[in-house]
């Protein structure tokens, strides 16, 4: 039997021991495992953020969750379907929570030459649209609805949507594409581009008057995007000029200011003139449009790299000729065509017509208008010789057709200096790459002396800007630079000066900007497998903690602990002292 006094002594001694230990406060060395740190990264869609929130809720109780990319994370959980640059920052195992696929904007791009006097196409690549489905693509420019097209699904679930913009005024245009199905969140992508109040320079040269070239020249003179200068040789030594055309075609320097040269009757050009035109394409990177009325001469064959026969066909009735890349209603009618038996390598057919079978030949497709590269420039050949005859036929659009073709040729010409920014619509602090193309070096074969080129980032309103660091690229004539987007929301210009000229590119900075992001599910799966992670569906994310535990390498470290510093020692101290007092009291000692 234990005596009460013994019990009292034990309790008293234990209390004193606690107090003494607390005074001594010993330190104990222990081996400790840090709590795992898991970075949860989400894609840009609303569905991604909702799913990421669920993932965080599941993981909070078992690991430390960081809601951003973290280089020292033990594992990374990514919720989404589009590859994001933040995933490059960590080599930890990657777990991908793959939510349901939806429509995504893979890419959005437009021409570098966005003129205020015309309509510029904006091409959008949409992913996630299976065949039989459709979605509406809406294009906004600075908040104003600009164009809308219904996108139809294809076999590979990728649709190319053609939209367009007519700038309301010169300056930076903030474009936003919203692609949405009947229900659900739309896919959004932003793009910034610079609209210029400028015109392409066009030279129309007619070695002798012709019906076709005359009507084409007239519609070009009505195009607000073009400054047209023309010369028509009406007789020996007699010309009819509009504007101040070059005295002679063979003078390459005289042709350099032009973006496009429209020629008729190439058979009437001298070899020197053809040589000047060729030099215009090769050294200046300009575009030439040739309007044929008959099989062209051998000199032109040499120009396009062709030496075969030319074919000619006159149809009993005119057939429609549609120019690719324009609206479906941009058609003309023609009945007389000239084309080469074999298209030169690299030729691109811009308009083809189908002619019915004849006694000696089956039905076939004739390349009515085609283009071929000549050096850095491009040659457009029109073998539709009599479209002018049907210019007033209902359903045809003679003016829009030829303005579209020459506009395409003019926009294909290489400018002396061109700067592009990628991406052009970013969030504050995002990485941006600037790319500068120097025509003189590109077309000069590297032998042209490179003039100094400088780049500045300025606000749209102008003023002093920050100089950008540039570096030469491995590609000839290409200079690049990287920088971070400014912290302040607004529109900026990357202004480049060099080679005696200046060019600018637009950069839009806003926290709501969204970059195009396609469906990279397959790539993400491979990336997860390569890093030792896994891919899960939305329904499986509850099993994430177990899957993470299997692959995470927890770090153990030795550290000191002071057990007596815990306030919970007050409880046994109080209990012991209380028991001792109660026992003494019960015994009549207190």
């Amino acid at each position: 039997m234990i005596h009460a006094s013994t019990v009292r002594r034990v309790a008293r001694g234990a209390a004193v021991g606690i107090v003494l230990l607390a005074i001594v406060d010993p330190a104990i060395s222990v081996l400790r495992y840090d709590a795992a740190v898991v970075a949860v990264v989400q894609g840009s869609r609303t569905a991604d953020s909702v799913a990421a929130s669920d993932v965080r809720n599941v993981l909070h109780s078992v690991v430390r969750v960081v809601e951003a990319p973290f280089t020292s994370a033990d594992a990374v959980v990514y919720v989404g379907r589009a590859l994001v640059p933040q995933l490059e920052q960590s080599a930890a195992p990657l777990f991908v929570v793959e939510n349901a696929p939806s429509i995504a904007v893979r890419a959005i791009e437009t021409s570098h030459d966005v003129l205020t006097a015309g309509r510029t196409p904006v091409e959008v690549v949409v992913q996630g649209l299976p065949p039989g489905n459709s979605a509406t693509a809406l294009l906004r420019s600075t908040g104003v609805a600009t164009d809308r097209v219904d996108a139809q699904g294809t076999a590979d679930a990728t649709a190319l949507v053609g939209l367009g913009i007519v700038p309301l005024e010169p300056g930076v245009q903030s474009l936003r594409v919203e692609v949405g199905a009947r229900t659900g969140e739309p896919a959004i992508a932003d793009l910034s581009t610079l609209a210029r109040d400028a015109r392409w320079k066009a030279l129309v040269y007619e070695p002798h008057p012709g019906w076709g070239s005359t009507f084409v020249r007239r519609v070009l003179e009505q195009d607000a995007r073009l400054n047209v200068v023309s010369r028509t040789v009406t007789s020996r030594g007699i010309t009819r000029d509009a504007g101040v055309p070059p005295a002679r075609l063979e003078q390459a320097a005289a042709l350099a200011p032009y973006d496009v040269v429209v020629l008729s009757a190439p058979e009437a050009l001298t070899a020197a003139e053809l040589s000047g035109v060729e030099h215009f394409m090769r050294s200046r990177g300009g575009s030439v449009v040739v309007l044929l009325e008959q099989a062209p001469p051998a000199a032109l064959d040499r120009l396009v790299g062709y030496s075969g026969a030319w074919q000619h066909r006159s149809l009993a009735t005119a057939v429609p000729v549609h120019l690719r890349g324009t609206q479906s209603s941009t058609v003309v009618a023609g009945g007389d065509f000239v084309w080469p038996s074999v298209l030169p390598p690299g030729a691109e057919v811009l308009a083809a017509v189908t002619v019915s079978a004849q006694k000696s030949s089956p039905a076939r497709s004739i390349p009515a208008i085609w283009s071929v590269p000549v050096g850095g420039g491009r040659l457009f050949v029109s073998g539709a010789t009599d479209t002018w005859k049907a210019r007033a036929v209902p359903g045809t659009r003679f003016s829009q057709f030829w303005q579209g073709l020459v506009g395409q040729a003019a926009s294909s010409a290489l400018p002396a200096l061109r700067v592009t920014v990628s991406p052009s619509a970013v969030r504050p602090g995002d990485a941006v790459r600037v790319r500068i193309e120097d025509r003189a070096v590109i077309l000069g074969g590297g032998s042209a002396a490179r003039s100094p080129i400088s780049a500045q980032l300025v606000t749209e309103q102008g003023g002093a800007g920050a100089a950008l660091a540039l570096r030469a690229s491995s590609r000839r004539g290409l200079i690049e630079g990287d920088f971070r987007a400014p912290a302040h929301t607004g529109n900026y210009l990357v202004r480049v000066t060099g080679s005696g000229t200046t060019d600018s590119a637009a950069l839009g900075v806003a926290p709501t900007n969204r970059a195009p992001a396609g469906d990279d599910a397959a790539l993400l799966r491979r990336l997860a497998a390569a890093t030792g992670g896994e891919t899960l569906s939305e329904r499986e994310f509850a099993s994430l903690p177990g899957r993470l535990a299997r692959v995470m390498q927890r770090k153990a470290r030795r550290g000191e602990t002071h057990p007596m510093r815990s306030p919970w020692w007050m409880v046994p101290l109080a209990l012991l002292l209380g028991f001792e007092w109660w026992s003494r009291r019960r015994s009549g000692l207190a």
Partner: protein
Amino acid sequence: MASADAVRIADRFAALHRRAQRVAFCEGLAGGLFVAAPVTFWGGVIPAVVACIASVVCGAAWMRWRTPGRGIIALRIEQLDPSARNVVVTAEELLRMHAPTPPHAVLEQIFASAGQRIDAISAARVVPATRAVTALGVALMMLVTSAVWRGSAGGAGLLLRGADAAVTVRVSPPKYLKRSDETVQNPTRLTVMRGSTLTVLVSAPGDSLELRTAAAVQVVRRGTSAAFTAQVVADSDGFLSYRTLGAAASEQSVHLIPVAVSIDSAPRVTIAAPGRDLLLPNGRQSIGLTIRATDDIALQALTLRYTRVSGSGERFTFTEGEVPLVLTRRNGREWEGRAQWDLTPLKLDAGDMVVYRALASDQRPGALPVESDALIAEVTSPGGVAAAGFALDPEQERYALSEQMVILKTERLLAAKSKMASDSFANAAAEIAVEQRRVRAEFVFMMGGEMEDAPQVDDASMTDLNEEAEAAGEDELAAGRMVNRGRVALLGAIRNMSRAAADLTAVDVASALTHEKTALKQLEVAFSHSRIILRALADHERLDLTRRLGGALSDAARSVHSVAAPSLPGDARAALALLRDVQRLSVQLPSSSTVLMELAERALRLGPSQPLLQRASQQWTAAATAIRSKQFAAGQQALDEGALAVQRLIREATATSGGGATSADAAIAGSVLDARVRVKPAGRP
């Protein structure tokens, strides 16, 4: 048995009780109406009615709750007459409680005394109603004033129209249409006939009304009636935009009504039968005529007129006339006229013709009748030429004819002879004869008119001469023109064409074919490359040598023209300006309803008849309405739809550049490919 005094006292108490009930009801009603007045001002019709009903209920409740009982009334009487010394209360209790009664004499004394006291005090002193009545009166005045402010001065009917301005448009069509006026309440769009008078009545607070159309602005003051009245004549597509001005006008009272004007179109009339030109063997024929006319509103008249043409060369005579028709009116818009026209009275000879056409008119004042295509009935003669200038076949068909075509048609006719009825064969032959004569006429014209007395080709030699004609053409002969082989061949061709035409008219098709082929051979001879055809020029065609070759060669130099820099069409620029204003709106949508209405008006002003601008205006009006109702998502959608409509308009007027700009990569790739091609050009084996 109750005494008379007791009965009188009981009646008196009952009357006082009823008075107290009425006073309590008035008090309760007044209280309710005090609340109903502001509800009427801000809430409108239905809340006002509900508030009034609630006031009545409140009055009834107050009456039930607050009406004093008879005991209280008795106490009040005692308070007013302290000398009563509780006798009134005692009398009331005795009447009410049926307590053990005192002796009869005492009762009578009590009732008598109480009756005297009660009679001496007026009911107004016992149950004063002044305060309640005053309160009720004030409450009623407040209610009426609120109603008046809510609508406009004039009456309770304004309460029924609600918060927004109400507009009534009375459309009075032009009188000639004989249509009744039409009244439309709060129209969102009007479609009226051109010339209609629109009487616009607007009921809204304000001192004056500003009414704008595409052409003018009117400011109308309020007249004797409660509504503003203005009149507009609708001549073309446009709009009505109105808003009230003045201190009491609503801030957002701009309203826009697009007006589409329909035009009374001209009638259409066709000659359904015979429907083509006729060649008659003689003038004693009859033609069955059927004429059909339609109009969008109503026809007024349908007639058939003819012109008799006789003579030839310079000696034509024209006689006008009208053919009576038997009219069948299916309805006011579709008429049919028939006639069996006997040509015998016109006494047509060979070569004469009648040109006839139908005329229809509708009820448009001052409008000219519409004519149908003119048809010809010609009495054929050998060698005759179908007259020009009477709405014959279009010019294109003349150019499509040739001698070879005539031969082809003749051969086909011969081949089909066995399958055709004889009259059809004859008609077809006559038609080919007409074409043969046209071809011949072309060559005759080219030769400056046929030389009637030129030598006969078939058996002529170069030395044969008609002496009379030779004398007349001495100078031509001296110049050697008469011996021109090409001209002789051409004359021969013309002769054979004449013979062919005559044979075709006589339905001797085989012989005609022979002559046609001979004519063709002679044409080929005439137009061979070694032939030169000369003809004499008439005086007015002689060349003015003073104007030829009179310049200096050195003056033939290049001409220089300036080229005006083209710009976008005016309507595209105006549309772009509209969209720039829309762009500014996009950032301040919640407060933009007024600006949206102005934009809607500008769109209609820019192109009242342009469907895309009409749609834009309609959408921006809907956007303004949605924003006023705080439905910002719907407002944004409507704003977008309007902007897209304007963008489509701009797209029609601007050129599109297909394809993108060439990048350096593409240029380099092109250079590489081009270099390869130089090594081995395409087409070379």
